[in-house]
């Protein structure tokens, strides 16, 4: 019985946490949030050096060859600091190439992706919230490997050297150097820490990948859940810290029982969910039969908690939390992203009901 993180995992969290404490203070975070591209090359490079970008790439391809649980505990820390940039799409695409790429594809891409010298992303959503593999309509013609059509809410497509695309039938294909044949329309993003755009493929060459859209979807759900846990937990911390420094009516506001009970209730909503994302990640690594349902439950549950925590933390701060420059809003907006990206919680609750056999599909 060992349901806790290994020394190595704790050390990994700690290293990333310290990096982000040092390199991503509130002011810098807001600068990136407000920037045109939502990316910080220096931070990217630091994460690459730490191995974070190649966490799921095998060692023989320059990665550190760890599993989803490791990636998820790092994602918790990224969420804790609302770390900006293309990491989510990059990590997911790296996983798909590592698990489904040919030897040649793996050779070509994984070392550069792990080193951060190339960037990867995923293109999954279609219009009207069609995030799930069985809803994808983008077709690969029988005549051969060319894509034509649109995908939306694609993470950082203009920066991507390689892109994993979900296609009709729930399969995945690989598009190399997509910029040459793809039109990108940037969207005005609520969450300045994760930018998305609409893309249109026009006879874009692609190659098959031997891993499924379902598996990539589950990976995304786990990483979003982990990110959301880190973010939600941080919202609790930020609200508590504020309550311990702010005075009103001659008292610390944290000494008012009304606020104390609200913060206690909030902590009770959030804190127990830590093991839920751990287990979903562990199932992804080791228990394939449980993995899809646990990923759905974790994503639905924790992302709802994150939005709730973001709203409660804002209220606990009063006016200052409502300002752009104080920066608390970054977490609330990240919470909305985590909740919506890959499908809203009610969609995954419904999926979990179907997988449990409660309902016809």
């Amino acid at each position, binding site marked *: 019985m060992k349901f806790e993180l290994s020394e190595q995992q704790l050390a990994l969290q700690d290293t990333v946490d310290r990096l982000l404490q040092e390199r991503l203070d509130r002011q810098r975070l807001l600068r990136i949030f407000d920037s045109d591209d939502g990316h910080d090359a220096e931070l990217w490079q630091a994460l690459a050096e730490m191995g974070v970008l190649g966490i799921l790439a095998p060692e023989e391809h320059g990665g550190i060859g760890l599993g989803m649980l490791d990636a998820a505990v790092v994602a918790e820390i990224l969420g804790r600091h609302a770390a900006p940039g293309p990491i989510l799409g990059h990590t997911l695409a790296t996983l798909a190439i590592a698990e489904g790429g040919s030897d040649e594809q793996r050779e070509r891409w994984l070392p550069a992706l792990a080193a951060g010298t190339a960037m990867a992303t995923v293109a999954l959503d279609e219009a009207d919230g069609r995030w799930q593999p069985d809803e994808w309509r983008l077709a690969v013609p029988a005549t051969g490997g060319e894509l034509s059509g649109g995908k939306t809410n694609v993470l950082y497509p203009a920066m991507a050297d390689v892109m994993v695309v979900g296609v009709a039938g729930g399969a995945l294909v690989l598009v190399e150097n997509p910029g040459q044949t793809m039109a990108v329309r940037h969207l005005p993003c609520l969450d300045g820490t994760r930018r998305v755009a609409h893309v249109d493929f026009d006879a874009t060459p692609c190659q098959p990948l031997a891993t499924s859209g379902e598996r990539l979807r589950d990976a995304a759900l786990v990483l979003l859940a982990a990110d959301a846990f880190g973010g939600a937990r941080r919202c609790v911390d930020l609200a508590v810290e504020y309550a311990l420094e702010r005075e009103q009516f001659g008292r610390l506001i944290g000494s008012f029982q009304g606020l104390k009970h609200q913060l206690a209730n909030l902590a009770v909503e959030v804190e127990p969910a830590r093991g839920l994302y751990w287990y979903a990640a562990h199932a992804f690594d080791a228990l394939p039969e449980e993995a899809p349902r646990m990923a759905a439950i974790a994503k639905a549950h924790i992302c709802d908690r994150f939005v709730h925590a973001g709203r409660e933390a804002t*209220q606990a701060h009063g006016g200052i939390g409502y300002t*752009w420059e104080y920066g608390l809003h970054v977490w609330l907006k990240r919470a909305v992203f985590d909740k919506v990206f890959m499908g809203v919680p009610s969609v995954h609750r419904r999926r979990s009901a179907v997988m449990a056999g409660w309902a016809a599909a």
Partner: protein
Amino acid sequence: MDLSYGAEYEAFRAEVRAFLDESWSPEDRRDPERIRAFRGQATERGYLFRNIPRRFGGSEQPLDVLKGQVITEEFRRARAPMEPPGIGVSMLVPTLLERGEPWQQEKFIPPTLAGEVDWAQGYSEPGSGSDLASVRTRGELVDGEWVINGQKIWTSNAQNCKYMFALVRTEPDAPKHEGISYLLLDLEQPGITIRPLKMITGQSGFNEVFFDDARTPADWIVGKRGEGWQVSRTTLKHERTGIGGVENYLDQFDKLIALAGSCTRNGRPAIEDPVIQDRLAELEGYLQAHKFSTYRQLSMNLGGKDPGPVSFMNKLVVTDIGHRIAALAQEIIGDDSLLLPSYEHGHKVGNERWMNQFFGSLGVSIAGGTSNIQRNIIAERGLGLPREGQGDGK
């Protein structure tokens, strides 16, 4: 039960409507001159500035809540302008009428009513929050002028205002609530710096105002030295009455239904999803309850009766309804909530405009006294529970 206003008021309504048909068309909205002229005519007829004496530019009508309601309804229907928005009309003028010197009333009220000058409110300070009496901005009387130093925050629209009414600590040795004066001052002077505050939605509605030896004449004070706290209470009372704008929320609910009809969820209109229907119907229960609660309060106020503890609850009720609308809208628009609602660089704003409600509903729960302050008021004044620190039997 009679939700109609009765024959007398329907006749009045017809009169207002005829006036509007004749004197206003919605295209006039963009012409400031037309608006000014229209307000003059409407005031002449007794429709605007009803509780303000004629000598200051008001129409000096007897109090008649129902006439007020009819006017609001008809002006809204015709999209005609009512009194100029802003706290000059809603807060400063009532305060001056109650506590101002005659010369102050004559100097400040008419141009405020005419919309010629706007006012900023200088109450909140960084660190004061709901505890408005913790004012630290200081004023000293030097050579017949107040010299003011400090900082205010959450002043709406300050960069467009000519004047400010402000709470300033002028008696540093007096107890907290007795050391504050209510000063008027001109914002267009070198001692004042205005910095816009960008809000969570990306828009700038509020400002910080810095005072660095700002000056105002010795007699630009309302009430006596040290009475500023009481003077400001008359104003706040004005801000905090009003029955919570149920029409606004009913409108929003209608729009939410339309939204649910137009958005897709699992490949079908969201409104056909039984989970969404259940949550819409639950929300409608709260909303209809508040609607009829509002009618009941209006009706009782008309008759000079006390509607009871519910009067203290309206703000929390609408805050809760606003949260519910926001949460449901966010669920319904799905992917569109990934977009920034206030982006204005050529991108057409679609369903993500509902994210303004998502954030705005948080703003409502913070502005004008946080929800926890409201809960204290309800518990103590509405339910009769002991005030903080009382009832401890020691």
